[in-house]
């Protein structure tokens, strides 16, 4: 036991003290936060570029309708100037020219001319302005012609927007507000996290075994400790490295979250919401109203309605079992081969179920009750990822129990087989290893 501990400590310190580990661990959250931050920043950020758009209006109806908007200014120009502008737009200082043809009421067409690639936002903004103006104008005429009093208000009242809140009835008959979107995000991200960790740390175990075999130190080591102790120390030590990394990320993430909340104060959030609503059409009062009931709370409520203890428990369970299963198999592969090319060949069949389950993660999370989801979450080699994708949606208890028991049994079997292969393989050099050979090793007496 003390030997296992020594190895564990050694493996752990070796990795944690590495510069690359420290850099990756510290930088990763910043990198991710940075990427998301940039995306959010640019989507929220006001377009501050100063632009002046020349407007040539053949209908003369829009004059005055185009008030300056933020950093975009409109300048109405006569026909003569328009003709000249078209040929020397660059020197004119205008950002672009909006041409409103005389027949816009019937053709529903206008033109925006520029020598630059115009931002989509600007075009949308103009389209919205023109459409709204024409629509209002036409409606006004209809209202006047009909002679019905208060028609304008009555029409406005007919506008309807239905919000669907999804409720899920649990086995106890209790209805809870659930959101497929929240569950989907939870499923998908947990599946991904398990995939990355199992893959990354499993590969680390394999590399560590290969390194010992390649440098030939292995013979000295296993003349001091049992191969099983060596393997256990390695696997646990590496798992602790992963745990350390996750802990650091959680702590950094927590700090980051607080910082972000401080930065996006409630005011900013409201602004964000409003500008969003505006762009989606302010003519939709129902939606605006829905947005006013704090969306953050809504999401928090939906998250709260997920079965958090179960999810956390399963996450830890599938994470550990999946890691144990794959790292012991990969450790055995590392022991069986003695060069990198062979290892590539052997790694693929071992990790294939893992890759398969990550490819199927999307369809599984989209339809968590389907046949595909069922089988992949029961079969032990894919279940660590597939089952995690299903749990946020909730599932019958027997399926979970079956999946977990099968996984535990398979993991125990895999560790046992891997230990045998490991023992034989460590001192086997210059032998091309294939499946038949491995089966033979399993039958060796140690």
């Amino acid at each position, binding site marked *: 036991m003390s030997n296992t501990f020594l190895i564990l400590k050694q493996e752990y310190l070796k990795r944690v003290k590495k510069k690359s580990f420290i850099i990756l661990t510290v930088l990763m959250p910043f990198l991710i936060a940075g990427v998301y931050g940039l995306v959010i920043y640019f989507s929220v950020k006001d377009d501050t570029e100063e632009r002046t758009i020349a407007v040539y209006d053949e209908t003369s109806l829009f004059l005055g309708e185009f008030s300056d908007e933020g950093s975009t200014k409109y300048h109405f120009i006569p026909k003569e100037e328009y003709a000249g502008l078209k040929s020397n737009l660059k020197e004119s200082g205008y950002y672009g020219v909006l041409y409103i043809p005389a027949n816009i009421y019937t053709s529903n067409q206008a033109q925006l001319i520029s020598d630059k690639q115009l931002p989509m936002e600007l075009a949308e903004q103009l389209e919205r302005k023109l459409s709204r103006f024409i629509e209002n104008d036409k409606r006004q005429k209809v209202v006047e012609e009909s002679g019905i009093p208060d028609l304008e208000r009555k029409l406005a009242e007919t506008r309807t927007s239905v919000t669907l809140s999804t409720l899920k009835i649990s086995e106890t008959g209790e209805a809870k507000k659930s959101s497929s979107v929240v569950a989907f995000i939870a499923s998908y991200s947990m599946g991904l996290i398990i995939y990355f960790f199992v893959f990354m740390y499993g590969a680390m175990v394999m590399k560590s075994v290969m390194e010992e075999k390649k440098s030939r130190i292995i013979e000295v080591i296993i003349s*001091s400790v049992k191969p099983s102790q060596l393997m256990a120390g390695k696997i646990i030590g590496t798992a602790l490295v992963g745990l350390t990394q996750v802990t650091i990320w959680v702590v950094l993430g927590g700090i980051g979250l607080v910082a972000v909340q401080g930065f996006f104060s409630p005011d900013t959030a409201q602004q964000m919401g409003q500008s969003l609503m505006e762009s989606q059409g302010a003519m939709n009062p129902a939606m605006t109203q829905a947005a006013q009931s704090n969306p953050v709370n809504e999401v928090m409520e939906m998250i709260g309605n997920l079965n958090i203890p179960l999810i956390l428990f399963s996450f830890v369970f599938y994470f550990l079992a999946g890691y144990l299963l794959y790292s012991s198999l990969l450790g055995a592969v590392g022991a069986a081969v003695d060069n990198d090319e062979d290892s590539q060949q052997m790694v693929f069949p071992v990790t294939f179920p893992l890759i398969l389950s990550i490819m199927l993660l999307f369809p599984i999370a989209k339809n968590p009750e389907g046949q595909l989801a069922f089988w992949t979450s029961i079969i032990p080699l894919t279940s660590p990822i597939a089952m995690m994708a299903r749990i946020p949606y909730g599932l019958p208890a027997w399926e979970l129990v079956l999946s977990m028991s099968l996984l535990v049994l398979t993991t125990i079997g895999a560790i046992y087989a891997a230990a045998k292969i490991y023992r034989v393989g460590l*001192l086997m050099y210059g032998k091309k290893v294939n499946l038949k050979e491995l089966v033979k090793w399993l039958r060796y007496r140690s």
Partner: protein
Amino acid sequence: MELFEARNVEKVFASTKALTNVSISVKEQSIFGLLGPNGAGKTTLIRIINQITAPDQGEIFLEGKKMTRADISKIGYLPEERGLYKKMKIGEQAIYLAQLKGMSHGEAVRNLKMWFEKFDIMPWWNKKVEELSKGMQQKVQFITTVVHRPKLLIFDEPFSGFDPINANLLKAEILNLRKDGATIIFSTHNMGSVEELCDNIALINKSVKIEDGPTDQIREKYKANLFDIRYRGSFEKVEKALGPAYQVIKHTESEKENLLKVKYTNGSSHNQLLETLLPVIEIRAFEELIPSMNDVFISAVEEANKK
């Protein structure tokens, strides 16, 4: 007293026999040479002693008791294929390996510092293995083998990779270790070092032990009744005197003295040979030729292969 004993050890790999009914016993504080051609089964035997593999049959004993897993901390093993963690600092690495053999951290550091000083490699304590020369790595490896003061030391080809100066240093250390109470089993193809160091040997060929015993007795056993005689006088007289019972292998003449290499073919003795020659020549030197371990090795293996 026997420190180590292997009784009737058998080991089969797939279809090849690695060891067939091999027994050896090693006296305390002696140096035991495990000899044999490549692939004879030496490394397998060594791995069995180290509990890396288990024998199919037979038993091994340390200090009179059946060996268990717990005994491996009493063994120091230097494998033929050396290796250390390339990226690890050598001091740190040596401490780790000593701890795996059951030493406490403090004890390991103290002993290691002593050895590092002795081998003049203290300045390399914080260097990584990959920065060291091969010879330096061998020194580190040797230190990690002996630092936990094992009762039984097993060296597989200890001199390979050492230059003659360092090989001598190593030899001296091996003798020192014995003086301090260690028992040593070593396997080598360097027969010169066997003659120099080994008290006893066992010769294994094709999984079978074909010879064992004290080194000098074995050499005695393989002697071919060859004599080197330096004399003054006439060779013709010598030839006449010797007759058919003796066979002249080689004869060289020079101004100062002549050299004769002779072998007796049937039952004769040193004295009879002297008596035959004394009347006819003046004998300046008379020496029986004892075969080197190299000769013993070759003739024993060739004989065994003929059978």
